[in-house]
């Protein structure tokens, strides 16, 4: 195929949605209800990340009954269970079918640039012209790996939570898991149970019980309005968006996965990884404080739940509970010999979105997308599905709907206004 043929125009629409995950498909469905001509471009298959870029044992952190997309509630027979990654992918694919979403799969976007009447979205199958673009590629495309990784001795195997699939990938011997989010704790647990001794480096984290007073913690978070909390009501929005995912696992026994549980299974906990010198990993002496902060914060949440329960008297809930503080060794280890004690380092240090294909003046000095609750700094560009985009639940499956409705309203209004302006220009 000649180069000019590949640069041809594939079509002209009102809106191009990039990414056929739950957020992109929710947007697509609502755009369709507003009769906006649009297309959803997907680099792989629908729900690609869930199929291709998650570890084998991953399960959703929210119970199934919470899973819903616009006009599409959970209809399975295990409302209290937690979907596997494959089940999430199927749920999203079924939604695409149900909504007859105009998805073009295997159509990766190489570049988005401003065009004469809006935007030009370039793909290997031709370019799409549109007046608005919705970025729905998600907030978890690339692993965040600290620069420290460069100082790691070459003999140490390194991988990220993005490339990790199961313990079988790892050489025998000790594993240092860096990061104490849901991801870090889940991987630490399954690797420890595979017979490789795990040390977990713990920085700031969020501790939560899986079940509180006989209800899933997410039930409480939803009922008390915590999940609906808006970003504009948060003291420090930047921080709220950076907070690691709470230490939860979607295990069928609904067991709590916290640092105490892990230590009971033999995982050693140390402070945040702060340095590597002479093949020795150095850990922060702040372990006690980060654990104290997480315990205090959990207890504040539980107290606010108790207060809400007192006022609203939900039926069938259990008595008030409090959990043991996080146990810390009398002298937590500050160093670990890399190569001897540790053969593999697994970076569970978070994810970030990848907008490298956006050729628009839309990034701040740190390279982050500039937007106000999903309305990007370049008029006509919208972003969905990022953590705490508009509400705490924004990156959750059930969180897509409210954000998508509000952003669809904004987008529709934007198209109406710009259409009137161009009509007026024509009249002159």
């Amino acid at each position, binding site marked *: 195929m000649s180069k000019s043929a590949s640069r041809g125009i594939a079509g002209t629409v009102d809106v191009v949605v990039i990414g056929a995950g739950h957020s992109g498909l929710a947007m697509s469905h609502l755009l369709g209800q507003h009769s906006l001509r649009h297309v959803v471009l997907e680099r792989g298959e629908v729900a690609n990340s869930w199929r291709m870029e998650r570890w084998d044992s991953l399960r959703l952190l929210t119970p199934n009954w919470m899973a819903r997309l616009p006009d599409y509630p959970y209809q399975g027979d295990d409302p209290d269970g937690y979907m596997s990654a494959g089940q999430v992918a199927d749920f999203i694919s079924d939604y695409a079918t149900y909504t007859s979403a105009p998805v073009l799969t295997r159509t990766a976007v190489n570049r988005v640039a401003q065009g004469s009447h809006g935007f030009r979205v370039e793909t290997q199958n031709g370019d799409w012209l549109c007046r608005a673009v919705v970025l729905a590629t998600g907030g978890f495309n690339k692993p965040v790996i600290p620069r420290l990784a460069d100082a790691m001795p070459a003999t140490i195997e390194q991988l990220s939570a993005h490339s990790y699939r199961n313990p079988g990938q790892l050489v025998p011997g000790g594993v240092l898991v860096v990061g104490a989010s849901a991801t870090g704790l889940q991987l630490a647990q399954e690797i420890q149970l595979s017979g490789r001794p795990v040390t977990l480096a713990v920085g700031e984290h969020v501790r939560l019980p899986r079940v509180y007073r006989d209800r899933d913690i997410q039930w409480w978070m939803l009922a008390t309005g915590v999940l609906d909390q808006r970003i504009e009501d948060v003291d420090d929005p930047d921080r709220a968006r950076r907070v690691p995912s709470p230490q939860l696992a979607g295990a069928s026994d609904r067991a709590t996965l916290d640092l105490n549980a892990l230590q009971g299974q033999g995982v050693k906990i140390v402070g*945040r990884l702060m340095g590597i010198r002479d093949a020795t990993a150095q850990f922060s002496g702040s372990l006690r404080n980060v654990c104290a902060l997480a315990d205090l914060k959990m207890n504040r949440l539980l107290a606010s739940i108790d207060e809400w329960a007192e006022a609203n008297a939900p039926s069938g809930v259990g008595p008030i509970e409090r959990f043991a503080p996080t146990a810390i060794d009398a002298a937590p280890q500050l160093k670990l010999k890399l190569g001897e004690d540790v053969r593999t380092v697994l970076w569970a240090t978070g994810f970030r979105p990848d907008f490298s294909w956006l050729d628009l003046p839309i990034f701040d000095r740190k390279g982050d997308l500039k937007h106000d609750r999903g309305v990007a700094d370049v008029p006509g560009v919208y972003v969905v599905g990022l953590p705490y985009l508009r509400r705490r639940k924004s990156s959750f499956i059930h969180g897509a709907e409210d954000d998508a409705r509000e952003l669809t309203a904004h987008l529709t209004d934007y198209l109406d206004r710009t259409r009137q302006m161009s009509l007026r220009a024509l009249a002159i």
Partner: protein
Amino acid sequence: MTKHMETATNGVNVAALLGAREALKDAPEAARFKWRATSEWVKGTHNRATVDGFFGLGAEQQHRQTYKFESDHPEIFASEDKGATPVEFVLVGLAGCLTAGIAAVAQNRNIQLHSVKATLEAGMNIQGILGIDPDVRNGFDGIKVHYDIDADASAEDIAALVAQSQKRSAVFDVITNPTDVTVTSSKS
């Protein structure tokens, strides 16, 4: 029940601190500070350090006055004990930083403080500095800080103040995390 909300008076200008935080967010250069000290050997293990200027907000800054600090070793080390031991200055710095943080956080959370007393203790095996046992480090093997705080707040809120102060403390960070140190010399 109506409760009259009074503003705590801990003597910390929180509005100025929050204003600085907002202003410095978009002025990364102004946020770069250099802290300085000079020192001169007196005699024996006695040393005198001076602190007067620092750099910050894009300009040279001066303390209201010059501060001098005498350090020495105690008499049981066959020294003259003309000042606190250098390792004790580390504890002094930690106490100063954490307590300032507690006051600032309390003010921000509108918690009235009445007294904030800290007791600090650092363990050290001097077989390290004496070179007796290479497996013993020179520095502290741990630091214990205890705060005794009288404030109009619950025990849990006080614990949260102390925790938040550690989270934002420069000296706590300097002590708990590795720092690259470059020492050079010249002949005068």
